[in-house]
């Protein structure tokens, strides 16, 4: 009976992928890379997240060939309360790119204080979003992923879905300083996984976390309501942008470049939404909510 149950579970990842993943990392004798990535753990995580990627969110990827080899900075839109968008972009690069790439997501600074998940995140190659970390990783020719919107993006309510929030300028400065191409990325669908209709700011302040979403299902339905909705997700990688110039230019000059990245992401989002008329059809509802 157990054998039959086991067959229902997601299968472990293939030996070929395993070998490719191991080959793509620079590991210490103990099996860790300098930033805490541990492919052994990642492989076990992939077994489950791959199922999420292919079967639950049915991710469609476009423009993966736009991601250049070597150092690169992925800049996606951010939404949907939990960083599922980041996870799916990372999975796209690990599962569909050849050779697979480890994407280093930049996580919030308060994150390492959380037990269990923070450890798991580090094992999967995520690092604290410190400019120093970004710079060092880019100089090692790695792929990093930054969300310039930060919690402003992920914590926004469903009514403001796909509206890019204010971007920081730090990522462009870093890209100039390290001569790294920026790849704008649009993630369509992840913003609907947790359609937050209200942000309980007072509770968030009380708990010391950035936001507490309330969705039509959570906390109303309890743990069941905490599951993400199985929205089909599309990820679009745009053409890389390489900036030159002075990394220490005044904010006004850098802002132009930031706005260019923002417009490229917006254009990708528009295209993605055009392909999903049923998401577009919800626009009047969202406008009403605003």
């Amino acid at each position: 009976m157990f054998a039959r149950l086991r067959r229902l579970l997601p299968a472990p990842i293939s030996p070929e992928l395993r070998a490719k993943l191991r080959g793509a990392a620079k590991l210490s004798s103990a099996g860790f890379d300098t930033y805490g990535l541990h492919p052994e753990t990642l492989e076990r995580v992939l077994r489950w997240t791959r199922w999420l990627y292919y079967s639950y969110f049915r991710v469609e990827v476009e423009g993966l060939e736009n991601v250049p080899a070597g150092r690169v900075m992925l800049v996606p839109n951010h939404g949907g309360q939990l960083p599922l968008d980041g996870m799916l972009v990372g999975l796209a690069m690990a599962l569909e790119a050849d050779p697979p790439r480890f994407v280093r997501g930049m996580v919030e600074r308060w994150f390492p204080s959380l037990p269990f998940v923070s450890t798991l995140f580090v094992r999967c190659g995520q690092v604290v979003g410190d400019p120093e970390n970004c710079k060092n990783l880019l100089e090692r020719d790695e792929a990093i992923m930054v969300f310039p919107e930060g919690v402003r993006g992920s914590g926004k309510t469903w009514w403001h879905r796909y509206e890019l929030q204010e971007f920081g300028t730090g990522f462009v400065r870093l890209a100039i300083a390290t001569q790294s191409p920026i790849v704008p990325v649009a993630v369509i669908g992840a913003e609907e996984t947790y359609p937050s209709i209200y942000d309980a700011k007072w509770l968030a302040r009380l708990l010391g976390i950035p936001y507490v979403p309330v969705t039509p299902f959570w906390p109303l339905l309890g743990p069941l309501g905490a599951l993400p909705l199985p929205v089909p997700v599309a990820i679009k990688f745009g053409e890389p942008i390489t900036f030159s110039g002075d990394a220490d230019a005044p904010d006004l000059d850098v802002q132009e470049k930031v706005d260019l990245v923002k417009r490229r992401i917006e254009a990708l989002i528009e295209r993605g939404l055009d392909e999903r008329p049923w998401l577009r059809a919800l626009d009047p509802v969202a406008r009403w909510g605003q």
Partner: protein
Amino acid sequence: MSVLVTGVSGALAGIVTRSLVEQGLEVAGLDVRPLPMGRAFAGEFYRVRHYTQRRVAEVFRRHKPRILIHLGRIRGTAVRSLTQRYNQNVLGTRHLLSLAAKHGVSRVVVLSTFHVYGAHQHNHLMIREDAPLRASQIFPELTDAVELDHAATTFLWRHRSVGTVVLRPAHVIGPNLNNLMSRLLRSGTCPSLMGYDPIMQFIHQDDMARAIVLAATAKSPNFGVFNVAGEGVASYTHAVRLAGGRTVPVPHVLAYPIVGALARWRLIFPQHLMDYFRYPCVIDDSEFRKAYGFTPQLSTVEALRSVGQSEGIPR
């Protein structure tokens, strides 16, 4: 040429002095502890009560050392009172350094620790030598370590005629060492904070001794402050497993109050080092590798295995 080594009763200093003697150097030793039983010391050994004692100056006058290797930092786990530790580590170090300047020492090597950077959730990885020393702000118990480091770096800039090297090593482990990490790894049962498993760096005692000797005797030295680490990183629980032990996870909400309550008597675990088992404090040792052409001989796995298999025999 004569070398003065402090903290010479320690196991690491033992390896260092043996290597110096092999190179044909004359060694004098200084410590507040007696020499361990059964260890022969190839040189003159002086036991003092404090490094601030007047007798220490006499050692400088008599031996006229050209090189001072200061390994005599006492650890937080070794001494009961904070004041004692402060006097020994900070005042003692300052005294030794001023004597070095006065008596024409041409090269000084000071052993600091990576603990001075502090373990903090905001830490970036690969901390370089110019990073702020946060430890004293986070853990007042580490003030003495940070001030020792400051005393050494200030000396480095103020006395340019003396070549000073300050080494900040990661966890130095070895079968003969008696520091917290080596003892933990040898014990076989290591407490850990449930849900936290920071990555750590380990350097084997022999590699560390080599690094110290290199800094003290290199023909074309590069003076400055350097991080020293081993081959790579490993998470704490993996390290324990590689050393043949197992971890006993304790929820941090319980561990901190328990250790805090028992900290007065220094039972269980040093309270100020707990955060190093919660947040990473990973250092970038590329400067030292570049400056001295140093490469650790033992991999992280080999270093951990060598500690785990040992009984902890003093040598």
